[in-house]
């Protein structure tokens, strides 16, 4: 219908351009009916609606219903045609019997005239029967009346289109089923499509990344990262500064961790960093004097898979020793680049 609506109006208008006076009214009505249906179809595909567009839709549908009877005579069903043939046959039998009874009292000219009259009568009865039986009341014609109310209650019609599911049935479900071992197929279909999709995305991403200049390989991790305009690592932002923590001692008290354990970890971390001016002091007493700021979440800007100039914000939330959302599942991630040796005993 979508493809048909693109050309049907133009084709009809072109085909019906040279009309004589007897055809003019009917063909104009046909064109009006088709135009109303095409307008309705185009408006039904709108992604969003206003009261005005919905009222337009309803008026187009109303016009269509008022003018659709021009096509009724072409909607003869097989059952109607069979019924008309049966009626025609019964009439012919009846007329043949009558003719047999009257055959001795009429001349040949009278008989021929009477036969012509009966043929016209049969034809008229058939012509009367067919329009009575024809109709355009089928389910697809009926549900168009609900489009406007559906859009008012649930949003645009295209959101509820089944086309995506129907297309998915071909590529994703049929192929997945064919490749499965026919046992527990649902899981295998989902798994197969997931793998296929992930592989496709990976290949596209690699292709996109290979075209981008400024890709660097981060030391120690072996990971490739995009070099941004002024940064060489993904941009990170610490947020939610907590004001009651200014030294390591206070931090340990807040987290309910032994100061000695914390200091041991700090010193371990310090030993792994390169010995330069930026390195933390190796003396525990000096480390204890350094100012500390504590934060709640860390925001990491991660480049989109296909659009290297756009980013998603991934948030790593800090929950200390408490369970997050009563111990429920969580999707927080934390990326870190270890300084020093890549392999570390844990």
């Amino acid at each position, binding site marked *: 219908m979508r493809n048909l609506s693109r050309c049907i109006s133009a084709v009809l208008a072109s085909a019906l351009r040279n009309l004589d006076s007897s055809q003019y009214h009917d063909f104009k009505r046909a064109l009006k009916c088709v135009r109303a249906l095409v307008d309705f179809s185009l408006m039904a595909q709108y992604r969003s609606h206003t009261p005005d567009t919905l009222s337009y839709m309803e008026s187009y549908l109303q016009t269509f219903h008022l003018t659709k009877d021009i096509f009724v005579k072409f909607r003869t069903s097989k059952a109607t045609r069979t019924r008309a043939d049966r009626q025609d046959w019964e009439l012919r039998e009846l007329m043949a019997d009558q003719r047999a009874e009257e055959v001795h009292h009429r001349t040949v000219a009278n008989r021929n005239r009477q036969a012509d009259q009966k043929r016209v009568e049969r034809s008229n009865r058939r012509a009367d029967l067919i329009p009575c039986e024809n109709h355009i009341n089928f389910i697809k014609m009926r549900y168009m009346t609900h489009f406007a109310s559906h859009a008012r209650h649930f949003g645009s019609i295209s959101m509820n289109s089944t086309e995506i599911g129907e297309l998915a049935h071909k590529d994703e479900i049929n192929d997945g089923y064919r490749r499965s071992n026919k046992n527990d197929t649902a899981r295998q279909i989902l798994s197969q499509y997931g793998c296929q999709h992930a592989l496709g995305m990976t290949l596209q991403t690699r292709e996109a990344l290979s075209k981008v200049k400024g890709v660097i390989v981060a030391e120690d991790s072996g990971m490739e990262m995009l070099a941004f305009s002024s940064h060489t690592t993904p941009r990170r932002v610490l947020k939610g500064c907590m004001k009651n923590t200014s030294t390591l001692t206070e931090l340990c008290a807040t*987290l309910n961790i032994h100061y000695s354990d914390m200091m041991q*970890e700090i010193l371990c971390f310090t030993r792994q960093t390169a010995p330069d001016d930026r390195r933390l002091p190796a003396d525990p007493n000096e480390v204890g004097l350094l100012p500390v700021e504590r934060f709640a979440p860390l925001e990491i800007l991660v480049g989109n898979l296909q659009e290297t100039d756009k980013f998603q914000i991934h948030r790593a939330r800090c929950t200390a020793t408490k369970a997050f959302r009563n111990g429920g599942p969580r999707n927080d991630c934390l990326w870190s680049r270890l300084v020093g040796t890549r392999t570390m005993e844990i």
Partner: protein
Amino acid sequence: MVQTGGDANYGDLGGRVVARLLALFKISNILSEAGAVHWLALVCILDPVNSGRFHIASGDIRVSRRVNGRDMRIVSIGE
């Protein structure tokens, strides 16, 4: 996830281990001339169950709390 080993380590985790984020903090080295600020994260390392391989029934990689040994680590999250 914290990268702690080579790609061959920890099964499907590829050398990374799952960690629970305990604290995020900045520490300024005011005692040095450079005055570097380190962004650090205190994490609690969780041990992968079944050598970090997917649990067949659920499709998840399961982790558990470390029973013995050091479980806390400080890792750099930037500067």
